[in-house]
C-alpha cells in the first residue's frame, strides 16, 4: 500500500513539475532604472562666425544645459559645462531626452554678450553611445517667424474654435515688410510645398512694397476673426476665450459673405478661386506656411525659394508628417488637447531651428501680441 502511495506521490510531483516548468514566466531584468549616463560636448557652431574666433572652435565653459526626459513628467536636470565644454549627467532613466541651451554668453570678442541657443534630441539606453555633441549657435536663424499658433479653441462644449490666431515675430535686426506676403494652410505635401489648402495674402506689392512694416522684435497678430470672442455667446461657455478685437490683421474671405469683418482691422484676403471659407486650421494636426508672395500660383504649390517659415503641428507624435524635414523636421504641439485653450509658442521669441518639436512649447493660455514669461 505504502509503495503504491509513494508511486502516486512521485507521479503527482512529476505532473506538478511539468505544469510549472511549462509556464513561461519573465525573468527579473538585471538592469535597474536610473543608472544611465550621458556626456554631452557643447560645441559652438562658428561656421559663419570665423572672423570672431580666428577659425578656431570655441569652448563655452560654465553654461547651463537643461536635460528634459520626454517619457516621464517632471524629470528635468540641469548641468554646467566644464572647462573643456563637457557636461555629464549620471543616474539617468532610460528614455528619450531633449537637451537645451539658452543663455546670454559673455564672449571676449566683438560678439560681446550674445544669446546662445541650441537643442539636441537623443535616446538614453544601453544601445546608444554615452557621448554626444550638442551644437549651439549665436542667436537663432534671423527673419520673420511664425511665433505662436493658437488653434485649440477655448474650453467649451459647442465646438467653438473661431478665436484662432497666428502670431508673427520679426527676429531680425531689420524692418521687414508684410506687403504681398502670403499665409497658407498646407495639405499633405509630396515634394516641397506642393499642396496648398488655403492661401490668403496681405495687400501690397510683394518684396518691394513698403506699406506694412514690422520692426525688429515686433509681434503681429493675424486673427481668424478680429473680435472679442469672450462675449460672442450669450451663455458663459466661452469665458476662457480671448479678445482679438485689437488684432493687427484679420483673415477675411471676400468670397464668403458670412465671414465677419472688423472694419477697424486690416484684412488678409483669400486669393484662391472658389474657396469660401475663413482661414480655419485643424485642431489636431496641420501645417501653416508664410512666404514672401513672389509665387502665388497655388495650383503647383509654393516655390521653396519664396518660403519664409513653416510650422507643422500635431497632437499625436505618431502622426504621419505632412511636410518634409527640409521644411520642418518635427512637430509642435504634441500632447496638446482640443478645446483646452492651449496654444503653441516658440520657447524664445523667434527661436527657430527648423524643428518645431524643439522650437515650440505648449502654453496653457494663448499670448497674442506678446511672449510668455
Amino acid at each position: 500500500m505504502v509503495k503504491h502511495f509513494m508511486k502516486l506521490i512521485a507521479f503527482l510531483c512529476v505532473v506538478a513539475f511539468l505544469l510549472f516548468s511549462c509556464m513561461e514566466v519573465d525573468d527579473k531584468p538585471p538592469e535597474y532604472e536610473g543608472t544611465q549616463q550621458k556626456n554631452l560636448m557643447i560645441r559652438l557652431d562658428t561656421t559663419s562666425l570665423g572672423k570672431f574666433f580666428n577659425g578656431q572652435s570655441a569652448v563655452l565653459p560654465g553654461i547651463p544645459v537643461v536635460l528634459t526626459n520626454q517619457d516621464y513628467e517632471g524629470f528635468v536636470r540641469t548641468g554646467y559645462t566644464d572647462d573643456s565644454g563637457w557636461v555629464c549627467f549620471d543616474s539617468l532613466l532610460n528614455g528619450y531626452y531633449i537637451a537645451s541651451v539658452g543663455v546670454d554668453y559673455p564672449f571676449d570678442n566683438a560678439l560681446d554678450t550674445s544669446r546662445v541657443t541650441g537643442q539636441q534630441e537623443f535616446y538614453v539606453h544601453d544601445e546608444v553611445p554615452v557621448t554626444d555633441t550638442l551644437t549651439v549657435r549665436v542667436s537663432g536663424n534671423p527673419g520673420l517667424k511664425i511665433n505662436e499658433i493658437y488653434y485649440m479653441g477655448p474650453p467649451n462644449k459647442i465646438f467653438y474654435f473661431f478665436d484662432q490666431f497666428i502670431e508673427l515675430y520679426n527676429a531680425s535686426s531689420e524692418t521687414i515688410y508684410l506687403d504681398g506676403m502670403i499665409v497658407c494652410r498646407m495639405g499633405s505635401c509630396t515634394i516641397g510645398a506642393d499642396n496648398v489648402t488655403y492661401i490668403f495674402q496681405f495687400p501690397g506689392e510683394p518684396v518691394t512694397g513698403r506699406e506694412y512694416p514690422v520692426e525688429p522684435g515686433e509681434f503681429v497678430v493675424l486673427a481668424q476673426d478680429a473680435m472679442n470672442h469672450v462675449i460672442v455667446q450669450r451663455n458663459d461657455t466661452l469665458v476662457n476665450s480671448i479678445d482679438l478685437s485689437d488684432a493687427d490683421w484679420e483673415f477675411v474671405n471676400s468670397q464668403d459673405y458670412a465671414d465677419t469683418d472688423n472694419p477697424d482691422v486690416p484684412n488678409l484676403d483669400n486669393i484662391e478661386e472658389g474657396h469660401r471659407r475663413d482661414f480655419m486650421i485643424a485642431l489636431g494636426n496641420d501645417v501653416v506656411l508664410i512666404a514672401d508672395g513672389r509665387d502665388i500660383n497655388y495650383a503647383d504649390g509654393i516655390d521653396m525659394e519664396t518660403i519664409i517659415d513653416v510650422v507643422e503641428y500635431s497632437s499625436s507624435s505618431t502622426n504621419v508628417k505632412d511636410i518634409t524635414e527640409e521644411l520642418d523636421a518635427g512637430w509642435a504641439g504634441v500632447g496638446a488637447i482640443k478645446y483646452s485653450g492651449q496654444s503653441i509658442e516658440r520657447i524664445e521669441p523667434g527661436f527657430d531651428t527648423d524643428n518645431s518639436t524643439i522650437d515650440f512649447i505648449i502654453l496653457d493660455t494663448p499670448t497674442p501680441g506678446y511672449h510668455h514669461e
Partner: protein
Amino acid sequence: MNRFIRQLMFLLLIALSTGYGYTNSIGISVPESWNTLWDFDRHPLHFKTYNHSEGMNTVIYTGYKSQNIQRSFDPEAVFSYGAMFETYRKLNEKTALYAAIDFGNVWHKQQFRSIEKNYYATYIGFTDTTSGDFRYNGPLIDFFFSRDFGKRVTWGLGINYGVERGIKDVFTRAESRELNSDVTNSLRIRPISSLSVDGWFRRYHGRTALEAVKEYQDAQVQTWFGYLAYRMENPGSSVEMEHNKDGYELGTGLLLEKQDSPFSAYLGFSVGTEENDARKGKKSVASERGYWQRNTSEGQIWLNYKQAKASWSIFGTVINIEDWGKTGIYEALFFETDESRYLGGIGLEFSGIKNTRLDIMARAGKRSWDYRNYLKAQNLTREENEWRVSFDFDIHPFPVVSYTGGISAEKVPLHFTWDIPSLTCYFVQAGFEYQWGFNRICPTLVWGVENADGLDDKNTIWQIRLSVKR
C-alpha cells in the same frame, strides 16, 4: 456523514484558500473586504455564507462605506447592492457540488481621476482628468465540484468566472470592462486513515479594458509607474488602455485527523506567480507600458481540539510576497517590493450554555513593506503590528427563532501608499433567524467605524443583508 461533509468542505476551502492570509472559519463578525464585489484573491462573501448543509440560500444585500479617510485616487464613498443565489447539493455518497451566482452593483462616488477600479492594486495604473461616480455591475459565478474515488482519493474542482462593466457618469462616459476566470484543481489522498495529503493547482486569468473619453476637452490620460512617476499619453477624443493578468499557484498540505480523537492538525504550503502587463492603445496597435510580477509563498498551520462543548483552534501563517516591475520599452527594473506578513491566533467555540454558541477569536501579527522605486529613487518602508479580536454568539431561545450577533475590534496596517500607518476598526453585527415553514429568514445588520490616529475624520460602514435559506 457529518464528517464526510466537513472533510469535503475543508477540501473545498483549501482549494479556495490560495495564499492570501488566514480566513477565520470560526465566525467573522464582518467581511474583510468592502471595496470590491469580487476579486481574485478571495471571496469573503462566499466564504461567509458557505452553507455546510444541503440546501439553497438566497441573499439580497446592500452596503455603504463613507471614505472620509482615503488616498488621492480612492472614491469618497462606496455604495453597493446585489443579490446572490447559491445551492449546495450532495448528488450521491461520492459526489457533491456547490454553485452560486452573484449579481452585484458597486457605486464608487466621486472617484478622483482614476479610471482604475482600484488604482492602488496595480503598479501601473491609468488616470485621466475627470472626477465622478463610477458604477460597476456584473455577474460572478462560482462552481465547485467534488468526487471521491474509492476511500482514499478525492478530486475537487473550483471554477470562478466573472464579468463586470463600469461606467463613469461624467459625459461622455469613461468605461471599464473586466473579465476574470479562475480554475482550481485539487486532489486529496489518504494513504492511511488518519493522514490526508492535499495538492492543488490554480490557474487564473484576467483582462481589463479601460477607455477614457473626451469630457470638456480631449481625454488626457496619464500612465503611473509605481505610484510616483507618470507619463502623459497623447490626448484624444477617446484613449484606450488594457491590463492583462495571468496567475499560477501550486499548493500542498497535510491533514492529520484521527478517528475518535479530538485532535486534528493541518500544515500547508503554497507558492504562486502572477504576471501583469499594462498597455496603452487599441489592441491592434497597443504599445507596452510595463510589466510587473508577483511571487508569493505561504505556509500555514492549524491545530484543532474539538470536544462536545468546546473547541479550540490555534493557527499561524507566514506570507512572503515579492513584486518587481520593468518598463515597457527599455525593460529595466523600475520598482521592487518585499512584503511579509506573520500572523498567529487562537479561537474558541463554546457551546456549554444551553441553546447558546459562542465564538471568540484573537489574532496578532506583523506586516511589513519595503518598496523601492528606481524611477524616482525613493524608498518607502513600513512595518506595523496588527491584531484583531472578535466575539460572536448564536442563541436559540425558541425552536423557530435564533439570534446572532458579534463585535470585533481590529488594527489594520495600511499599504505603503497611505500617508497614515494603520486604521483601527470596530464592527458590530446583529441579526436573527426565523423558521418560516421550510424556510429560514435571516436579516442581518452590520455597522462599523474606522479611525486613524491623529485624524478627526472617520469612515463609517453599513451593511444590511437578508437571506432566505431552504
